[in-house]
């Protein structure tokens, strides 16, 4: 599956069909496969196709969140008094799979105004620019959505 994906990606990227370039492309595809095999990427069902449609819906939701919180941070930055109230929030996430935890941590960091400080097992430590942002994270909306990604 991944091999096909990589091959298509190489063809789209280069757009050339000379023998030398095709051989180089095949070589790098094989290299990536070997490296990801050695990283045990195939032990998890990370590349499951059924994840993709859910992932795209999750991205759409995440994009809305990013726009909303970008506006929030922009308002804070441009206001004269700089009304920040930095808050460190700690909570236990519901998602257990390592990939899910990585997605959740990265999503929190990607959203302006919240920043993942550390992940220890289920325990997330999150730094928020405002108290309101910390409360939003602890509501667990994002955690719930990430946990649903893998449930069938």
């Amino acid at each position: 599956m991944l091999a096909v994906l990589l091959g298509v990606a190489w063809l789209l990227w280069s757009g050339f069909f000379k023998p030398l370039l095709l051989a180089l492309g095949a070589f790098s595809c094989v290299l990536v496969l070997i490296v990801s095999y050695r990283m045990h990427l195939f032990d998890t069902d990370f590349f499951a196709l059924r994840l993709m449609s859910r992932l795209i819906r999750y991205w759409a939701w995440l994009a809305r969140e990013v726009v909303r919180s970008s506006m929030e941070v922009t308002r804070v930055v441009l206001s004269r008094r700089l009304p920040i109230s930095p808050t460190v929030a700690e909570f236990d996430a519901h998602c257990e799979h390592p990939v899910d935890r990585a997605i959740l941590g990265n999503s929190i960091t990607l959203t302006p105004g919240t920043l993942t400080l550390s992940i220890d097992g289920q325990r997330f430590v999150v730094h928020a620019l405002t108290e309101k942002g910390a409360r939003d994270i602890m509501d667990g909306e994002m955690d719930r959505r990430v946990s649903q990604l893998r449930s069938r």
Partner: protein
Amino acid sequence: MGMFQDIVSWILLTGGGFFVLVGGIGVLRMPNLYTRMHAASVTDTMGAALVLGGIMVQAGPSLAAIKLAAILLFLLITSPTSSYALAHSALLAGIQPDAGRAADPEDHP
């Protein structure tokens, strides 16, 4: 098509430029490392997305647009990863976030 395309892409590019500017101002105004990273993340997300979107509209439906979309995707995956590395190593280095705390009420009754 040319005129309309130009207008849309200029709106996107200007919006992206605005958010990059806001990120820069925020980095200068914020008091410490963690709050500065919040300001910088506006540049990472909205700035990068809008600027790349603007270029994509300029490129039109072509191979270049797909490549730009891929760049955006990779950027959106790698930038929070590096932010996390920076924030976590700052925490390990003992830089205390000057902040109030809020713990989950459920498991600390």
